[in-house]
């Protein structure tokens, strides 16, 4: 296979992944581990039942600080930033004027007028330019901290038990979608009780140069408890089972926030934000399409990302993400379908390599952890 030589970006853990014999892939221009020798199924299972450790240093971090910071983040995102307490995080998005997605992101409130915006790796440069462009005339600074920042995600029911012995910061009081600053294994971290797997867990942000030491300390502490290094392969199946959106799949610049099932991050009554007028108009009219969960009915029928949804030989929608689900043991997926078909128990057809196969619309999320 001839490949065009492109210099992939590397996280501070690149050598660590290679030492662990990870299978590396090009993920949005980053050289990232898709799986380690245990494999996607074992890594997925570890996160659901014990714990997995992910390198997410490729994610982008943008800090907005200064007297105009709150006003800027309110203007840029549809969720209600004023409701965030200091030390709290929420899921939100950058939207275009037409209500479609620039990206989805997490907003961390570090202070009254200081926010850390954590964005997708592949959109990081676009997002930084987007924030800078809208910051003009606003009294605040916008700094791209991505290159200086490492991030690892410890996910799974044993996460607290693995992490607590490494830090003096009490972890139990940190609520879901809250964060604090502390030291883990002697390394200064932002300790965030968040994740992209549907399990309890923490995302730890640190200086890029400390990332490998942090990774090694957490791996060493967790290994006896069954912690596995976990790659992007299981990150995808884990987030899919929980119906968490992935940019380029469930959301992009052709899909608006309401049809994506993300009305809960759109606070139309909070005041002005980019995309509000379009979403107000969209809300007033019946939505032509909706994101639904489905399962195919036969074991051999495994739908995949971007396959067409068909009816009477005509394409009526498309699959955004699909895979055999390791936890649920069925072949499931998410798809945009016409609203009149988007009813639980309803049948749709997916075109798999030229064959239209039956699928049933089922409730989402497909998996929800027992709390």
């Amino acid at each position, binding site marked *: 296979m001839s490949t065009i030589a492109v210099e992939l970006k590397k996280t501070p853990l690149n050598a660590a992944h290679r030492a662990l014999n990870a*299978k590396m892939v090009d993920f949005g221009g980053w050289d990232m581990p898709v799986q380690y020798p245990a*494999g*996607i*199924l074992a890594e997925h299972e570890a996160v659901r039942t014990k714990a997995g450790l992910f390198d997410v240093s490729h994610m982008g971090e943008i800090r907005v600080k200064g007297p105009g910071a709150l006003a800027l983040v309110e203007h840029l995102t549809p969720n209600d930033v004023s409701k965030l307490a200091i030390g709290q995080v929420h899921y939100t998005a950058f939207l275009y004027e037409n209500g479609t997605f620039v990206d989805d992101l997490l907003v961390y409130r570090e202070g009254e007028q200081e926010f850390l915006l954590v964005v997708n790796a592949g959109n990081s440069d676009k997002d930084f330019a987007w924030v800078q462009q809208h910051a003009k005339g606003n009294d605040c600074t916008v700094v791209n901290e991505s290159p200086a920042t490492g991030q690892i995600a410890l996910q799974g029911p044993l996460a607290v038990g693995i992490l607590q012995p490494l830090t003096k910061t009490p972890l139990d009081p940190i609520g879901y979608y809250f964060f604090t600053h502390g030291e883990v294994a002697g390394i200064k971290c932002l300790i965030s009780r968040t994740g992209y797997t549907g399990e309890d867990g923490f995302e730890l942000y640190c200086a890029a140069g400390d990332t490998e030491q942090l990774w090694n300390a957490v791996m060493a502490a967790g290994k006896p408890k069954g912690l596995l290094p976990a790659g992007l*392969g299981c990150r995808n199946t884990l987030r899919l089972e929980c119906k968490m959106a992935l940019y380029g799949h469930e959301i992009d610049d052709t899909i608006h926030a309401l049809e994506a099932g993300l009305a809960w991050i759109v606070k139309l009554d909070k005041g002005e934000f980019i995309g509000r007028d379009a979403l107000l108009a969209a809300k007033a009219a019946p939505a032509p399409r909706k994101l639904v969960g489905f399962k195919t009915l036969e074991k051999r029928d*495994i739908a995949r990302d971007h396959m067409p949804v068909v009816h009477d030989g005509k394409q009526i929608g498309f699959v955004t993400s699909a895979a055999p689900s390791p936890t649920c043991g069925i072949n499931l997926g998410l798809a945009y379908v016409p609203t009149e078909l988007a009813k639980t128990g309803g049948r749709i057809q997916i075109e798999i390599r030229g064959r239209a196969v039956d699928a049933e619309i089922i409730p989402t999320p497909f998996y929800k952890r027992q709390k």
Partner: protein
Amino acid sequence: MFPADLKYTKDHEWLKPMGDGTALVGITHYAQDALGDVVFVDLPEAGESFGHGEEFGTVESVKTVSELNMPSDAEILEVNGTLADHPEAVNEDPYGKGWMVKVRLKGALAADLLDAKAYEALVSAESH
């Protein structure tokens, strides 16, 4: 990784001539490693015939799907029934328990099949 008694295709199937006009067909160690955890193998019925290079089934892993192409003109005699319940055999033992179909060869073996040495060279070029 590259048993000497097998013939290989450029798209990572192997064929093992049994010396009596029949052969076993499967996918290589390299192929199973690239696919990752195999969760389903879709195979044809005994009695079906496939031409050289023709698709005779698919192998599905958690993350992707790959076509299975017949290495040489052949008729299906038997499919490996254990793969229905144990698709992981393809990962664990691609040249043994993970075989996929037993075929009766029709005519001479395809001229483009590779021997172990040539296949190893191909794989080493692909992975660099």
